[in-house]
């Protein structure tokens, strides 16, 4: 079975910005301008992906179908990311350190709920509930173990110093909210990988989506670890991971395209 054509220009652009980021790390230019360009790309490219995903959702009958809802939700997630990144970039022009929690977090906080609901809908596509029922005890045990392991790993990485909670404030509450969101998304990704047998012409698009969510999770963790050390500046490693994540999710939004597999057009493939 032939897979679908890749959006080549988008992929070439993404590779270009990856090389640009590597060059930034290698040459470490002193002018802030070079780092700000990457911050703008980190806003603009997901915005483009958001628009494309929203357009593609209509071809799957929008919210009336599970795939249509997945595309709407990843479109909203990418849009929330773009707005948060835009707010972060603008504020960072005027102040040395962007307040946390602040305006960008009002947008960033919505990303995980949107991605979680997208993953719930992917569970419908893969018929996962029935697959779990086939060996109920074994699969539920496997599922529980995976979720518990992911939860403990995330919490340990982020909150291994319990003195952190001694002065509970809004920043800690937002940290917990982000962590909870990350755990839910990565657990749902794991469930999809473990129990669904996704394939066919949409396979590459769906695996891009799952890989994007995994990179988003790694980016969230690395940001939380590096930010207190002052190493989460513009175009740093977390930004690069977020760039890969949003690029993969955007790519999925473009590749999960009903028009490309429609038989009326499909005969031309």
């Amino acid at each position, binding site marked *: 079975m032939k897979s679908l054509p890749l959006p080549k220009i988008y992929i070439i652009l993404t590779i270009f910005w990856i090389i640009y980021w590597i060059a930034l790390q290698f040459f470490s230019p002193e002018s802030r301008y070079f780092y700000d360009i990457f911050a703008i790309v980190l806003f603009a490219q997901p915005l483009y992906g958001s628009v494309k995903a929203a357009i593609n959702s209509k071809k799957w009958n929008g919210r009336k179908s599970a795939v249509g809802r997945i595309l709407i939700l990843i479109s909203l997630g990418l849009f929330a990311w773009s707005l948060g990144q835009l707010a972060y970039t603008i504020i960072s022009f005027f102040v040395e350190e962007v307040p946390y929690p602040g305006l960008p977090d009002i947008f960033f906080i919505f990303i995980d709920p949107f991605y979680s609901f997208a993953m719930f809908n992917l569970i419908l596509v893969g018929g996962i509930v029935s697959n779990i029922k086939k060996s109920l005890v074994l699969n539920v045990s496997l599922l529980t173990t995976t979720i518990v392991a992911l939860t403990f790993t995330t919490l340990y990485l982020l909150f291994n110093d319990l003195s952190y909670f001694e002065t509970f404030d809004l920043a800690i509450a937002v940290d917990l909210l982000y962590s909870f969101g990350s755990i839910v998304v990565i657990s749902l990704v794991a469930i999809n990988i473990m129990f669904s047998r996704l394939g066919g012409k949409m396979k590459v698009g769906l695996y891009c989506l799952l890989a994007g969510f995994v990179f988003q999770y790694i980016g969230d963790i690395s940001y939380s670890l590096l930010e207190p050390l002052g190493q989460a500046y513009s175009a740093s490693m977390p930004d690069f991971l977020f760039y890969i994540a949003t690029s993969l999710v955007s790519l999925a939004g473009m590749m999960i395209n009903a028009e490309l*597999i429609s038989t009326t057009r499909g005969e031309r493939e």
Partner: protein
Amino acid sequence: MTDEQLKRLVLAIIKKQTQIIGENLALERAVNTGLIQISSKDARNLTIEQIHFSGADNEVVTRLIESYREIFGQASVDVCVNILRENFPNDFRTVIPQTLLV
């Protein structure tokens, strides 16, 4: 399998796929098997009377499932097999080839 059972089964598969991939693609894929004719373009109100077949029972079901498999692979088959299981709890394996039940 009686004609009535076949129609009910095909209807259930198409309607389930409508919930997953949307009405347009679910109906288009069914019609493009070349074995199913549908005289309605509204999957929600699709009735048995609006579906007509021109093939053997197993062939109709198999071609229909294979047409959906092209989209999401074995995951699409799993969804259809679940419907078969609900309709034929004891002998659903006889309705479609083993190659689809991997």
